[in-house]
């Protein structure tokens, strides 16, 4: 029932830019050790949009941290263009789920942050920053502080900041999760448009099926506890994919297929959390 489907059609790819190989992550918790990520392997090709989907608590963020090089203790290896990473890699740009703009910097200075680190001259980096600000559609807000912007706009600032470092691989952890539905859809369209425009290799972590199907070339479905790869689904829909495609029949079939896979995992996750809440009444679900 839980046998992961082998990523058959991608096995032969030596051209993968990102290779995640047999990652296992264990955490010691007061209730004993847990396996957050269990033997996850995947490959991302240049220019590809790959999503990892799974219910809350299945180890998605843990995987995100491993690929981003923020987590030290894990088994397995992650390599970028053939080079095994140990710590954060400059080819990987991360966009976090939580609000991560710097409140003490203007939009321009936020976006110029990675350029500042490279020692680029001020005039030049402002110009570069403006380019990426325009790309995410925030022109006119260059001199505002994040505190003056909405949640969706701040998330766009974070995205522009990461894009400004021109990473080979864009790695995002539920970047739209904290936003309302309308903002999420619009921002999703924006990201997709940018991704296509820049041919940006992207690894998106999400729990939203529609979002995943609309954007991805392939979707990795994860199981809940331990977090394994359950299936890899290739999304064969024409691009560009606007929000209209969401109504099509083919789209609906993909959503239904992935939901069938996920439902089982999600309900296992829910039962698990209920059990946890019952046995530890004070510890809320994370």
């Amino acid at each position: 029932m839980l046998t992961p489907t082998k990523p058959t059609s991608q096995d032969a790819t030596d051209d993968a830019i990102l290779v995640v190989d047999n990652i296992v992550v264990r955490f010691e918790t007061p209730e004993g050790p847990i396996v957050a990520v269990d033997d996850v392997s995947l490959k991302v090709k240049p220019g590809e949009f790959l999503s990892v989907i799974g219910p809350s608590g299945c180890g998605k963020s843990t995987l995100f941290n491993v690929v981003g090089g923020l987590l030290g203790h894990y088994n397995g290896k992650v390599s970028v263009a053939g080079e095994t990473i140990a710590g954060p890699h400059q080819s990987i740009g991360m966009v976090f789920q939580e609000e991560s703009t710097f409140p003490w910097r203007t939009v321009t200075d936020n976006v110029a942050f990675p350029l500042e680190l490279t020692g680029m001259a001020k005039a030049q980096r402002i110009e570069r920053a403006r380019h990426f600000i325009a790309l995410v559609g925030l022109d006119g807000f260059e001199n505002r502080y994040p505190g003056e912007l909405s949640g969706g706009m701040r998330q766009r600032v974070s995205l522009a900041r990461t894009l400004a470092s021109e990473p080979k691989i864009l790695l995002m952890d539920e970047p739209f999760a904290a936003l309302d539905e309308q903002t999420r859809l619009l921002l999703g369209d924006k990201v997709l448009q940018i991704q296509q425009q820049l041919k940006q290799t992207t690894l998106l972590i999400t729990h939203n099926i529609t979002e995943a199907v609309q954007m991805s070339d392939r979707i990795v479905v994860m199981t809940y506890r331990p977090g394994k790869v359950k299936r890899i689904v290739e999304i064969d829909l024409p691009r560009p994919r606007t929000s209209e495609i969401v109504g099509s029949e083919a789209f609906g079939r993909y959503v239904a297929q992935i939901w069938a896979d996920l439902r089982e995992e999600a309900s296992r996750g829910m039962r698990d959390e209920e059990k946890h809440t019952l046995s530890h009444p004070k510890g809320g679900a994370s």
Partner: protein
Amino acid sequence: MTDAAAPRPAMRRTIPPQVVGLSSLVAFFLSMELLIQTGVINRFIVPPPSDIIGSFGRVIVEENVFGRFLLTLSECLIAGVLLTVVGVGGGVLMHRFKLLQQACETWVAAMASAPIVLMYPLFLVIFGRSMWTMIMMGFVAALPPVILKTLEGLSSTRKVLVNVGRSFNLTPSQQFWKILFPAALPTIFVGIRLGLIFALINIVGVEFLINFGGLGQLINELAERYDLPGTYAAICFVILVSILFFMTLEKIERWLRPFD
């Protein structure tokens, strides 16, 4: 009912808060005046506000209040600079070296509530009857809140901001100057503000105790002469020092953090 009630909050909002603050202060003084003039409060214990205002001129002309004011002010200023450098530095070191934090945090917190001013004889022996006795006293007494608040600000920097820095491969010094420090700045300012209050109280207190220096000594002298209106007038100048510091600090903070 809601219709009738609606305009009221709007009307209330048109009164600026400063006016409310000022008028409640005036009301307080007027009622004190009234209570004292009618004999409910003994005027030989609490002088009426009008006498205090009347004694301002005398205190200013005869007691060289401006010189003393400047002296106390500069003592506070020097203590404040020392506090900022040593206190913030100490907090940073404690954040950087966990062992130091584990070793010191508790007793620094204990020191914050200790009546350090009672150690003034020791300081008097070390620094003599000079302004350095006051400065060092104020400095030492006010150090704990600055250290603790700096430590708190640095430690409570949101994890995700630190992770953004790590994802961009920041060096430890970039991580500190570009992320931790600016994120901690508001809390550090709270510490400095608290520290300045502690410093002012202790400086004026020691001036009073050793009968030497600025406004504290003046208060001591006037009190010993039983010149109560003068004493209270001198206290008003201490309050003025405190107000000046707050206004300056607010300006600096606004300049450093223009967005909130």
